[in-house]
């Protein structure tokens, strides 16, 4: 007898265990399976389709720790109908989850390398699981540098965790904002400028980048000016999605379906599409 595989189009109910407000419009939700504690295994960089009943379904990256699979964590910014419904959920309420989907960050293939994690705004959410993984396997990697930029100090995600990471001797954390009042003790300036201060050996480095398109474009240029090749750079892309499993074509981007060929791409594979306005 063959075991029946779960239908990837059927959402599994999850209960909200905790909601934490990160910024004025962004919330982190801890979820657990409604039918009892079950592990939710995923790889850093993957996403789920979250279904807010009565509103609709959207792709959201998993932002939690892959080594703590009992709790599923998502960080969501309220930008429209569905994300607003998700951000308004309270403890004990239920939402549907399909996933995990997509190509992850290559964290298990970069042992021995220096790793640059470069995030802009909400882009830290999909990169956080990668950082958890790197820190759990710290001995396998060279320098690890986290470079994180946001508009203002109030727009930074996970500020307490950033402080904790900053206190570690085996990780260098550079936080920068576009503008700040004079009580801000860290950097002001764009993330690309901070790359100058990071310690890495260009031929033995990989960079993982996530943020808005313009930020990723400038960051890739800056990394290449420091000697990285497109093969050493990974970016995470976003497109509107429906099925999340490569069936409907909704997320088509050039020759790719972002839900199944991405969202994480090695830059050399997409460089011809990356800069295009409409594809």
């Amino acid at each position, binding site marked *: 007898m063959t075991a029946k595989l779960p239908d990837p189009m059927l959402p599994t109910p999850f209960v909200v265990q905790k909601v934490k407000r990160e910024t004025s419009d962004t919330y982190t939700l801890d979820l657990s399976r409604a039918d009892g504690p079950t592990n939710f295994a995923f790889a850093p960089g993957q996403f789920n389709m979250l279904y807010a009943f009565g509103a609709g379904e959207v792709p959201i990256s998993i932002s939690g720790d892959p080594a703590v699979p009992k709790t599923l964590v998502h960080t969501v910014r309220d*930008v429209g109908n569905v994300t607003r419904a998700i951000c308004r959920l309270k403890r004990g309420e239920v939402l549907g989850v399909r996933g995990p989907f997509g190509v992850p960050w290559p964290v298990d293939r970069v042992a021995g390398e220096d790793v640059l994690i470069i995030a*802009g*705004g909400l882009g830290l959410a999909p990169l956080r699981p990668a950082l958890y993984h790197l820190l759990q396997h710290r001995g396998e990697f060279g320098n690890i540098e986290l470079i994180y*930029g*946001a*508009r203002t100090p109030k*727009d930074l995600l996970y500020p307490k965790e950033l402080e904790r990471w900053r206190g570690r001797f085996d990780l260098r954390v550079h936080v*920068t904002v*576009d*503008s*700040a*009042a*004079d009580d*801000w*003790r*860290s*950097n*002001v*300036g*764009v*993330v*690309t*400028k901070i790359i*100058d*201060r990071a310690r890495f050996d260009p031929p033995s480095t990989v960079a993982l980048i996530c*943020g*808005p398109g*313009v*930020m990723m474009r*400038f960051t890739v240029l*800056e990394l290449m000016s420091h000697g990285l090749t497109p093969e050493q750079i990974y970016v995470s892309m976003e497109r509107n999605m429906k099925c999340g499993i490569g069936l409907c074509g909704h997320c088509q981007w050039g020759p790719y379906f972002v839900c199944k060929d991405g969202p994480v791409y090695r830059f050399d594979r997409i460089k011809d599409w990356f800069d295009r306005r409409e594809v």
Partner: protein
Amino acid sequence: MDTMEPILAAHPFFRGLDSRYLKLIVECASRETFSPGKFLCQDNEEARKFYVIHHGRVAVEIYRARRGAVTLQTIGEGEVLGWLWFDRPYHWHMDARALDLTRVISLEVQGLMDRCNRDHDFGYELMRRYAHHLAVQFRVTKAQLADFYGD
């Protein structure tokens, strides 16, 4: 031996510069230390110095009567401050304030200009670095204007 020369030689702005030229620069150089909160320069003051930062952090600010000081950029070790010194009216266009204890080598601009005018090869080397610095500043400003983190 003056310890400024190796510091300048290792600084990204001057890296690779012939030691003959480094000696010319050292002739215009002096060390300064700024404690946190102290100004390296202030808006409208005459720009007599070019700062080579080798330790610490500096906030580049514009002061607005209503909002107070607005930080445009922070700069630190390995960077330079005062990139408008080659152009009239030779005035600072902003304030720069030490955030941490900051050690700099300050270069006397008039002395540098005189040496550039006397030795055009030296002038070219300095201008090349200056042009690169301007290009980087331009890239950074463009990126900042693009609202990097907005969707």
